[in-house]
């Protein structure tokens, strides 16, 4: 294992929103955990537990009200070139070709046009979409669109990949296919990945560790080590280890999502 020292330190982070009616909404309550270098970490929780908010905070898109977040010892104050996000709804520019979409993050960084194209082609190649660079996003399937989204994040060669329920909008078959693709890509260059999901099996299948969060206000319920060998393939899903982990996480979540059912479980 090449998992190393803490890269991201999240310490007692608080986040409040104000709703339209002016009522305060407590979204994150004292969330603390570390993300280690080269680690694939998932944040698992029910809808509305603040896991996507936490990811936006990590990216620097959203401010937080208390605690601290440091990446490599540096406090997070805004989006930076060390991080790239893969968005749940793909967030592709519909008026730009696939190639221009992938090259977009380089435009703000003063990379020359020729080099932008070259790097975007290389990124598209990694996700297997070389033949589609001139296509418009709407002509691609959801799975292909998200591969474009992944290529766009990879093109800046970020140290940390932040993935916000990236496969949540896809059908089950496409989702498992893209999970394998992601693992393949990840096993090659071992970026640090923070992966937000509400699907338990997805979290277990992909991750080194899973942070389970409670419903609002989001708190860390448990951090689970996924002690399954990293060379994972679809068969892993059928092993007892895998299913035990899934069952355990379901149990933890059930206790908080439906408190009245806890005794029955």
């Amino acid at each position: 294992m090449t998992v190393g020292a803490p890269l991201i330190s999240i310490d007692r982070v608080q986040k409040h929103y104000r709703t339209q009616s002016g009522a305060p909404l407590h979204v994150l309550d004292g969330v603390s955990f570390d993300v280690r270098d080269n680690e694939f970490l998932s944040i698992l929780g029910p809808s509305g537990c603040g896991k996507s908010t936490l990811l936006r905070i990590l990216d620097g898109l959203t401010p937080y009200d208390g605690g601290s977040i440091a990446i490599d010892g540096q406090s997070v104050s805004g989006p930076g070139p060390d991080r790239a996000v893969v968005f749940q709804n793909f967030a592709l520019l519909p008026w730009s070709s696939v190639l221009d979409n992938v090259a977009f993050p380089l435009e703000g960084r003063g990379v020359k046009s020729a080099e932008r194209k070259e790097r975007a082609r290389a990124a598209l190649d990694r996700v297997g979409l070389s033949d589609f660079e001139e296509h418009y996003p709407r002509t691609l399937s959801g799975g292909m669109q998200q591969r474009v989204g992944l290529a766009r994040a990879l093109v800046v060669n970020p140290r940390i990949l932040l993935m916000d329920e990236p496969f949540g909008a896809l059908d089950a078959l496409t989702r498992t296919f893209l999970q394998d693709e992601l693992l393949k890509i990840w096993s090659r260059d071992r970026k640090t990945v923070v992966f937000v999901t509400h699907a338990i099996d997805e979290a277990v299948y992909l991750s080194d560790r899973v942070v389970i969060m409670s419903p609002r206000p989001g708190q860390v319920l448990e951090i689970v080590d996924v002690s399954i060998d990293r060379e994972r393939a679809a068969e892993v899903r059928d092993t007892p280890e895998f299913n035990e982990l899934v069952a355990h996480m379901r149990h933890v979540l059930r206790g908080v999502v439906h408190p009245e059912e806890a005794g029955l479980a």
Partner: protein
Amino acid sequence: MVASLRPIGGGPAVSRAKPTTWPRRVLVLGLRIGLLVLILSIWEWAGRTFGTPFTFPPFSAVAEAFVQLLGGTELWVSAAITLESFLFGFGLALVVGIGTGLLAARSQVFDRLSAVYLRILMTAPLAPLVPLLIGLFGIGLPSRIALVFLFSVAVIALNTRTGIQRVDADLLQMARSFGAGEVLMFRRVRFPGAVPAIMAGVRLGAGRAVVGMVVAELIIVSVGLGRLINVYRGRFKAAEMFAVVIVILIIGVAILLIVKWLERRLTAWKGERT
């Protein structure tokens, strides 16, 4: 994914027509031609039955006059004079309208200030402004340009503003996440995202500009095709007068077709074929 974009007059962001199949297209085309023939037949019959060459001629007489007018030079010269006010007035409305819309989207204060006047321009009848325009610009080309401009500028400005403001928030967040500055954000996200709404405004503005162009010649000063209409009316040549009206209709339709073609080209990424 589809933001509920509702610029004035809808526009391609809203209309999601089913792709028409071939047999249906033929049917629609056939019905259109049939309806036109029916209308013209009724006109022909009414002209022969109730009309006179001085008041209401049958369609055949108008068609004859139309062909004759096409052969002469007077029609072409008049049409050129008429189009002059359209080209300058509408061109100015494009520049000022889009510019005003962009500024309004940028500054809330400017938006609050301009919105009132733009709404008035949109809804109030503009003919009462004509004496004011004549007082300002005289009765020459500048007055006609000003009227065309006033007719078309507001809808372009309002749609541009709305288009920029309604750009998909997820895309803006994505751009911010990837470190896009204001200029890049505008060039690659805000403006392209607003193009469908802007083009819907341009299409509606073009229609209003055509109205302004005709109104100017009928109530400010008798030049161009408007003068031809007055001349033929004065000589009781109703067929020729109607022929000029038809020319104006054709010009109006042609302008709208050009704008619609441009609109389709600029929003091709939406994948809507009509």
